[in-house]
């Protein structure tokens, strides 16, 4: 029982990790939290659905196309809608993100109508039995894909020149500007990366759940909770927080009350912010008066 819950917790957490990570990537470079990110995730899933079901593209190329399209959309969003309102109150960014999300949602609903659509399964793998433990094909699919994505992401960040540049800008945007990095373009780029990572999350969700235009909203909150838990703004924290959140949802749901699955994320947010606002893995920042 415990191991079974652990496996479902980790595979839920893996999806949350992609979402929390994609939010963090943007937040770190721009200090903007994408309140419309749930709809970016939905849009990624939606695009892959259109390609696979309506246009008959095979799943893997369809997924890659959808991710590239979302990357470009993220870039365009930053360039066209975020940059122009930089002079205004910061609060405007939150509403801009939400509104862009609404546009995605509206378009999806125009195409989809009010129906809930099943995405064809990517591959039907028989579950693996280990003792009395059942590991479903979906869990294998999600865990292997996110595992690879995370390895690539953190590998690029740690080992390549681009990764080092990203870290440099994260450390100090001013310093990066001095050594000739165009911060505006860099921010556009991180929006693209954020949208692409979110899209991967959406594409992973698509085959295992029903698709509908509102599927993003709940994932946004999970992303927030994961970020809060791991320490807002920390890349590794986002991943660890997401895994912990996935696990606590499963445990709380099974051992306490199944109604708690829905609100675990909210309870996590409230308790962490009141008791340890820097998150479990964050260091306390000293605020200068």
């Amino acid at each position: 029982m415990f191991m079974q819950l652990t496996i479902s917790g980790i595979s839920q957490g893996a999806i949350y990790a992609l979402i929390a990570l994609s939010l963090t990537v943007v937040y770190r470079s721009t200090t903007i939290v994408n309140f419309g990110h749930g709809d970016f995730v939905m849009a990624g899933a939606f695009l892959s659905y259109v390609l696979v079901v309506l246009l008959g593209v095979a799943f893997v190329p369809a997924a890659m196309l959808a991710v590239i399209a979302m990357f470009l959309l993220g870039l365009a969003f930053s360039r066209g809608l975020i940059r122009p309102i930089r002079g205004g109150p910061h609060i405007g960014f939150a509403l801009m993100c939400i509104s862009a999300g609404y546009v995605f949602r509206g378009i999806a609903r125009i195409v989809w109508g009010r129906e809930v659509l099943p995405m064809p399964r990517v591959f039907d793998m028989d579950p693996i039995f280990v003792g009395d433990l059942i590991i479903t094909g979906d869990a294998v699919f999600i865990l292997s894909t996110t595992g690879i994505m995370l390895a690539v992401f953190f590998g690029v960040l740690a080992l390549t020149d681009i990764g080092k540049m990203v870290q440099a800008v994260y450390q100090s945007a001013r310093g990066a500007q001095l050594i000739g990095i165009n911060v505006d373009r860099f921010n556009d780029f991180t929006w693209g990366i954020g949208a692409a990572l979110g899209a991967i999350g959406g594409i992973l969700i698509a085959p295992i759940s029903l698709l509908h235009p509102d599927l993003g909203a709940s994932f946004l909150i999970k992303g927030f909770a994961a970020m809060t838990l791991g320490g807002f703004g920390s890349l590794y924290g986002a991943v660890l927080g997401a895994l912990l959140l996935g696990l606590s949802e499963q445990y709380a749901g099974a051992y306490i009350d199944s109604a708690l699955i829905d609100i675990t994320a909210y309870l996590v947010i409230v308790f962490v912010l009141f008791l340890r606002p820097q998150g479990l893995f964050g260091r306390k920042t000293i605020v200068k008066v």
Partner: protein
Amino acid sequence: MMPTPSQLRLRTALFWAVPLLLLLLPLSTNAYVQFIANSIVIFALVALGFNFVIGNLGQLAFANTALFGLGAYGSAILVNSFGLPWILSIPLAGFAGAAGGFLASAAALRGIRFYYLAIITLAFGELMRWLYVHGTSITGGTDGMSLPAQSLFGVSLVGDHAKFYVFLAVAVLLFKATLNLLRSRVGRSVMAVRENEVATASLGIPTARIIVFAFMWSGFVVGCAGALFALHTSYVFPESFGMLHLIVSFAMVLVGGLGSVIGAVLGAATLTVLPEYLRSFPGMEELFFGLIVIGVLLALPDGLASLLRKVSPIFFERYYRE
């Protein structure tokens, strides 16, 4: 440009003339149009209260939905379970909202600010919604609860036309009170905290108390609006108090103009009326809602109210009467 003394008198005259003219509105509307008009009045109050915290106090707190729900459920429970006449439930719903605002301010005073505050207050709203769903014996669960027919001084409050007069009266009182606040040392301190909290304290202004008050006043206004909403739809159920309500009211505040009282009316009217035209086309409603808000954010960063201020200084609404 600041208003001159005579313009200030005109401003006061205008404030009372508008609701007086609106008294004639029900004579020319059918039930559907009147229902929309009632929605605008209620959402203007929602935006007014929300604006007090995000526009005037400058705190990114999203407790608005929780406060609205507290007011609506508070009113419905008082009427259904305690047999209170609905009209008396309005101020009590306001106090329920104020209590919710007090809770949210506790987070702000604990140093939970900005995005943290946004996220924790978002969680507050969703936790409240979970309580409405699971507190079945009191709230009716997912089915919600309906409000019995109400009357006031022997006049039945069943039709949308009759309700309008009560809603309008409550709205005028709360708008007047909020303007009084903004034109006093209290409102000024609220805005001073937004501008520079450290410097505000150096002037002998108790910043913590000001923050708590601003949240509570916001809660009171939104809570009262919740009570109106309960009668407006005669029915209270959890889905009315979800993310959609938050997003719509947030957009109303920014489209109207952050920190602007008249902006609350403009934002509520714009974003209530326009989606109505598109209601029957799935998706169009959301698409155009998104596009309108994006358009306003790009073209009018200070909201629709800034257009009025360009027309005449009488729309500069802060400030005293000399």
